C-alpha cells in the first residue's frame, strides 16, 4: 500500500468495518489480476462494502478526496478491466449479493450488483422464468460485472446480450451522486442512458441496483452435436444454419485442440476425438412440435453442408453433458499449459471459414498452440493461446500473434471484442477500429459522467489517440482539501455539495 493512502484506510474502515478493508500486500495481490494472466496491477487499497449505502459513502469519500477507484465484481473478466493501480482503491462488490425482487407477473428482477449470474436463474426457476445471458463463467461472475462488460454467452445468439435485458439501473457517479436510469418497463426517461451505461466497463460509475428482464424457461429443447472433418466446412455450415431462417438458441464451435482438451478432462462429453471441429446447436421454444420440426430442418442443413454425423441429445442428462464440456472448455484448456490467453473478436459469419484458416496459419508461424471454442452463430471468436509465461520471449510472441489475429478480424469487417471488453488488454487496438474523432467523442461522453476520469482510469479509450474535442476538460481537478477530507470525510462531501 502506498504510504499516502494510509490515512484513508481508517475512514474506509469506519464506513465498511475494518474486516472489509484489505491493506496487506498478500491480500491485495489476490486482486492483482482478472481472468487474463497477461496484466497485473496491485491495488493500493481493497474495500468491500456490504450495502448500497456503504458503496455510496465510499464513492463520496473518494470523490471528495479526488482519488481514483475501480469497481470490481468477481474478477472473472478477460480484458484486464477490473484492475487498479497502486494509487487507486479497488471497490469489490461481491458482498452486495442480494436478489431484491422477483416480479413474475411483469417478468423482471431487481438485484444488487454482486449477485452471481446463475443464482438469478435458479431463483427465478420456480416461476418458470430465467435470466438468459449465460457467460461461460456464469457460476462465478456477477451481474454487476456483466452490466459493466455487456457480457454475452452461448444463448445470446437467440436472446441477446446483457444490454438487451437490462431495464433500469441505479448508479453512483464518480462524485457519489446517485442517478436512476431507465424504468422497470424498459422505456427510457429521455435518451437511452441505460444502453449507454451497459458495457461502459465501469467508466461511468458504480451500478448499485440493477433491474433485469426475465424470460420464460423454454418448454421444449433439442441439442445437436454435429462433427466435421475440416474446420472450413464447419465454418461454412454456420452460415448455412444462419441463412436457413431458423435462429438456434445457441450455435457453438470447438476445434480439434479444444475437443482433445475437453475429452482429456473430467468434463469429457463424448465429443468425437477425430473430428476437426464440432458444432453444438441448441433449439428451444414453447412448443414441442415446432422445436422438433426446426431441429429436423437444422439437422438436414448440417448434413447437407458437410457434417459427418449429427447426434441429437437423447435426454436432459446427455444435453447437460454436452453443454458441460463446452462451458468448461476454458478450464479444460488449463491442462494444455501453464498460461492461457483467451482472446475475443467478432467477424461477419460468412467470413468464418477464411478467418479460422488465417488464425491457424498465424498460430503455426508463431509456433503457438491456438484452440478455438466460440460462439459461431454470432461470429464471436475465442482463439485461446496456451503458453508457459516463464519461457523467455514467449509472452512477446503471444502478444504479437494476438495482434495479428485482431488485425485479421478487423480486415474481415469485424471487431476486436464481442463480449470481453477493451479493458487494458485491447486499448492499443482501438485506433485500428475508430478514428480520432470517434475516440474523442467517447472520451467526451465519459467526461459527462466522470469529468476527472477517476473511475477505472486508463481503460477503454486510448487517450493519446483522441483528437481534440471542444469543451474537453483534461486532467484531474486540483484538490486542496484532500488531507482535511481524510480526517473529516463528511465535511469534504458537504463542501463539494455546496460548491455544486
Amino acid at each position, binding site marked *: 500500500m502506498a504510504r499516502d493512502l494510509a490515512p484513508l484506510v481508517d475512514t474506509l474502515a469506519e464506513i465498511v468495518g475494518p474486516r472489509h478493508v484489505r491493506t496487506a500486500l498478500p491480500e491485495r495481490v489476490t486482486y492483482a489480476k482478472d481472468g487474463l494472466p497477461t496484466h497485473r496491477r496491485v491495488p493500493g487499497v481493497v474495500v468491500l462494502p456490504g450495502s448500497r449505502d456503504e458503496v455510496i459513502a465510499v464513492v463520496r469519500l473518494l470523490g471528495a478526496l479526488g482519488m481514483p477507484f475501480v469497481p470490481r465484481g468477481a474478477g472473472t473478466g478477460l480484458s484486464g478491466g477490473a484492475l487498479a493501480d497502486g494509487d487507486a482503491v479497488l471497490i469489490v462488490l461481491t458482498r452486495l449479493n442480494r436478489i431484491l425482487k422477483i416480479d413474475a*407477473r*411483469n*417478468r*423482471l428482477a431487481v438485484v444488487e450488483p454482486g449477485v452471481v449470474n446463475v443464482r438469478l436463474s435458479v431463483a427465478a426457476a420456480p416461476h418458470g422464468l430465467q435470466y438468459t445471458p449465460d457467460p461461460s463463467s456464469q457460476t462465478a461472475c456477477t451481474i454487476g460485472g456483466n452490466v459493466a*462488460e455487456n457480457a*454475452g454467452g452461448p444463448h445470446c445468439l437467440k436472446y441477446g446480450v446483457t*444490454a*438487451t435485458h437490462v431495464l433500469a439501473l441505479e448508479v453512483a*457517479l464518480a462524485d457519489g451522486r446517485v*442517478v436512476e*436510469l431507465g*424504468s422497470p*418497463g*424498459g*422505456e*427510457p*426517461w*429521455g*435518451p*437511452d*442512458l441505460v*444502453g*449507454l451505461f451497459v*458495457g*461502459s466497463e465501469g*467508466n461511468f460509475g458504480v451500478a448499485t441496483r440493477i433491474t433485469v428482464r426475465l424470460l*420464460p424457461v423454454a418448454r421444449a429443447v433439442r441439442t445437436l452435436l454435429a462433427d466435421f472433418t475440416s474446420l472450413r466446412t464447419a465454418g461454412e455450415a454456420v452460415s448455412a444454419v*444462419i*441463412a*436457413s*431462417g*431458423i435462429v438456434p438458441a445457441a450455435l457453438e464451435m470447438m476445434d480439434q485442440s479444444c475437443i482433445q482438451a475437453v475429452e482429456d478432462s473430467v468434463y469429457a462429453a463424448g465429443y468425437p476425438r477425430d473430428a476437426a471441429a464440432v458444432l453444438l446447436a441448441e433449439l428451444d*421454444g*414453447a*412448443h414441442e412440435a*415446432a422445436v422438433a*420440426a*426446426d431441429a429436423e430442418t437444422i439437422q438436414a442443413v448440417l448434413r447437407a453442408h458437410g457434417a459427418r454425423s449429427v447426434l441429437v441429445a437423447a435426454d436432459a442428462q446427455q444435453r447437460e453433458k454436452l453443454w458441460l464440456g463446452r462451458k468448461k472448455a476454458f478450464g479444460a484448456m488449463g491442462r494444455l499449459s501453464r498460461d492461457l490467453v483467451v482472446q475475443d473478436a*467478432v*467477424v461477419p*459469419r*460468412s467470413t468464418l471459414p477464411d478467418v479460422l484458416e488465417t488464425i491457424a496459419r498465424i498460430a503455426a508461424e508463431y509456433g503457438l498452440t491456438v484452440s478455438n471454442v466460440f460462439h459461431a452463430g454470432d*461470429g464471436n471468436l475465442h482463439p485461446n493461446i496456451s503458453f508457459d509465461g516463464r519461457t523467455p520471449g514467449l509472452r512477446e510472441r503471444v502478444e504479437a500473434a494476438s495482434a495479428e489475429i485482431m488485425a485479421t478480424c478487423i480486415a474481415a469487417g*469485424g471487431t476486436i471484442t*464481442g*463480449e*470481453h471488453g*477493451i479493458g487494458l488488454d485491447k486499448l492499443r487496438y*482501438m485506433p485500428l*477500429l475508430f*478514428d480520432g474523432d*470517434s475516440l474523442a*467523442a467517447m472520451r467526451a*461522453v*465519459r*467526461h*459527462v459522467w466522470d469529468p476527472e476520469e477517476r473511475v477505472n482510469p486508463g481503460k*477503454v479509450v486510448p487517450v493519446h489517440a483522441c483528437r481534440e474535442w*471542444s*469543451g474537453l476538460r483534461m486532467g484531474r481537478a486540483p484538490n486542496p482539501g484532500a488531507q482535511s477530507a481524510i480526517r473529516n470525510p463528511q465535511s469534504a462531501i458537504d463542501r463539494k455539495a455546496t460548491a455544486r
Partner: protein
Amino acid sequence: MSLLDRVRALLGDEAVEVAATPDGVPRVAPASPDAVALLLGTAREEGWRVRIEGAGTWLPADAPADLALTTRRLDKIPAIEPQDLSATAEAGIGCDLLRQQLADRGTWLALDPPGLAGRTLGSIIATATAGPLRQGFGPVRDHLLGVTFVTGDGRLVHSGGRVVKNVAGYDLTRLEAGAFGAFGVIVLIHLRLRALPRADQTLALEGSREDLTQVAEDIAAAGIQPAAHELMSPALARRERWLLAVRFAGSAALVAAEEAGLRAATGGRFAPLRADEGHSLWMRAAESFATRPVAFRVGGLPDSSDELLDLLQHQVGDEWISASPAIGAIRWGGEATIDRLKRLRRTLAGLEVPLTLERAPWPVRSAVGHFGAYREGVGPLVAGLRRTFDPGEAFVVAAEGAE
C-alpha cells in the same frame, strides 16, 4: 454572401432545393455523410440554427431554424448481406424501398414503425418509434449494429460496426437511437436482419376492451409468444369495437404450433386473417398515427396496462390507441393541448412510467418536449451530452419542454 450562396459554394447547386419549405426556411440536401459534416461545421462557425428532416412525413417540418437539413439524398443501401443477416443503409432511405430490397434478398428488418410507408430509416431510429413487432423482436435499438452520425459542430463519429456482437468502446449507437437528433444527425446505419419469415399469420378478435384485456392476459399466461400482440381502439382498427390482433411469424412449424396454442388458450375465438387482410390491418394502423397531430408512447409494466389505458381515456381520450399489453407499451394518437400533455406526463411520472412525445406541431413539442419529468440526476447528464455533441446549439430539437 447569403446563407444559400454559402451552401451552394460548399456543396454545389444540387444540394439546395429550389422549392421552399412551407415556412420559408431554405432546405439543404447533402448527398454524402462528408457533405453533412461540412455543412454542420460551417453552421457551427456561422451560428446557423439547423433543423433535421427526413422525408417530412413524421415530425412536421416546422421548427424555427436558419436552414433545414434533409437526409433524403442519403438514400443508398451500400450492403445487404443475407449470409450474415446484416445490412448497411444510409439514413434517408425510405423504409418501403429498404423493405423491398431486403425482401428480394430473403431478409427482413423486423420493425413496423408508425407512420407512412416512405418514412426514412433515420427518422425511425432517431425517434426510436417501434411498432407492434417490438413484442417479439424488441425495440428499435435491438436492431442496430452501429451508426455513423454527425455532431452539431460537424464531426463524423462512428459507433459499433457491422457484426452482431460488439463491445468495443461505449455504445453510442444506443444513445443515438431515440435521441430525436439532439446528439447528432444519423447518416449511416448498420442493421441486424432476420430471414424473411416462412410463415406470417395474423388473427384477430373483436370485443369490449375489458374482455380483450382478459384474453390478452390468458394468452400471456399460456406462454404463447407472438411476434405482435396488439390491442387497438375501434377508430384505429376501423372496427365497431376494440380489436385484439395477434401476429405469428417464423417457420411454418412454429406458426402452426403457436396458432394451435392460441386456439387452445382462447377457445378458438380468434379469426385468422388472409395475408392481404393482415397486411392491410397493420399498415393502416401504422399510417393512422401519421394522420393525427400528436402521438406519444408510454412504457409501463404489463400489470399496469389496463390502469394506464384508463388513465389515458380519462385525461386525453382513447380514440387512437395501440397497446402491447404483454409488455406494457402504449402508443396514443390524437389531439391534445399542451396543458393536458404536461399534466399527463406528471401523473405518469408518479407511476414511474415515462411518456415520450413522438410527434406534434412545434408549439406543442417546444412546450412539452419529447422528454421530461426526468428521474433523479438524469437532467444534468442529458444536458452534458447535448453540450458535448452540439456545443454551438446548432440543432433545433425540443428535447425537453419549456418549464
